[in-house]
C-alpha cells in the first residue's frame, strides 16, 4: 500500500494515550521537575487533538489554538520553574512528599 490513508481516529487515540501517560506520571512521580514535565506531556497531547480536528474541518483555527497553548505553556514553565527554584532554596528538597507543611 504505497499511499494508504491513516484513519483520523488513530491520531486521537495517540493523543488519548499520551494524555493518560501524562496523568500517570503526574500522579506517580515524586520529583517535582518530572511532575512538571508530565504536565507538558499532557499539553502536547491536547495540541495533537487540536491539530487533528483542524485537519478534519480543513480550517487553521486548531493550529492557532495549539499556538496559544504553546505560549501559555512557555509562560507556565517560566513561572513554575521559578517557583521550583524558590522551593529548593527554602527547603533544599525536590521531593513533593517532603513539601507538605500545608497538610497539618
Amino acid at each position: 500500500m504505497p499511499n494508504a490513508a491513516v484513519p483520523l481516529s488513530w491520531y486521537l487515540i495517540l493523543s488519548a494515550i499520551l494524555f493518560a501517560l501524562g496523568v500517570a506520571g503526574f500522579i506517580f512521580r515524586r520529583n517535582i521537575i518530572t511532575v512538571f514535565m508530565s504536565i507538558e506531556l499532557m499539553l502536547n497531547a491536547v495540541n495533537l487533538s487540536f491539530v487533528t480536528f483542524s485537519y478534519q474541518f480543513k480550517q487553521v483555527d486548531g493550529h492557532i489554538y495549539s499556538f496559544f497553548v504553546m505560549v501559555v505553556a512557555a509562560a507556565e514553565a517560566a513561572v513554575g520553574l521559578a517557583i521550583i527554584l524558590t522551593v529548593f532554596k527554602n527547603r533544599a528538597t525536590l521531593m513533593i512528599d517532603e513539601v507538605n507543611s500545608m497538610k497539618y
Partner: protein
Amino acid sequence: MTALIFIIFAGLAVFCGINLVVQTHPIASALSLIGVMGSLAVLYLQLGGEFIAAAQVIVYAGAIMVLFVFVIMLLNAGAEATTFQVSRFVKYLGAILLAAFLGLISLVIQAELPATEGVLFGSFQGTALDVGRKLFTTYLLPFEVTSVLILIAIVGAIVLARKEV
C-alpha cells in the same frame, strides 16, 4: 507511506512517553519528552500544520526544554528516592491495568468517531500564510492578551527567583 510514517513516529512518541514516566532521573525524562515533541512535530507536518510543527520544535523542544534542563542542572537534581515501597505484584498489576485502560480508551474513540476519510499527506495545508492571516484578523485580541500574559510571566519569574525571597 503516510501510514508507515505515522506508525513509526506514533510508536516513538508512545515509547518516549512511557520512558518519561518510568525513568527515575529527571534528565532522562527530559530527553524522553524531547523525543515525544519531535515525533509530534512530524505528525503535525503530516496533518498539514507547517507553522505549528516549526513552532513545536523551536518553542517547545528548543526554548522550554532548555529551560527545564537548565533548572535540572542548576539544582543538581539526582535520581529520585523512592519514598514508598510497592510489591512487584502491584507493579505488574498496575501495568496491566494501565494497558487495559488505554485499550478501552482506544476502543471507545474508534467506536464513537464517525467514519471519515483518512489523513493523506498534502490534502490539507495550513500554511504559515493562512495561520498568520487568521491570527492577525480573527484572533487579534487573544494574541494581544497573550503578550500581556507573557509580560506578567516574565515579571513573576524575576520576582520569584530573586535572591531575597
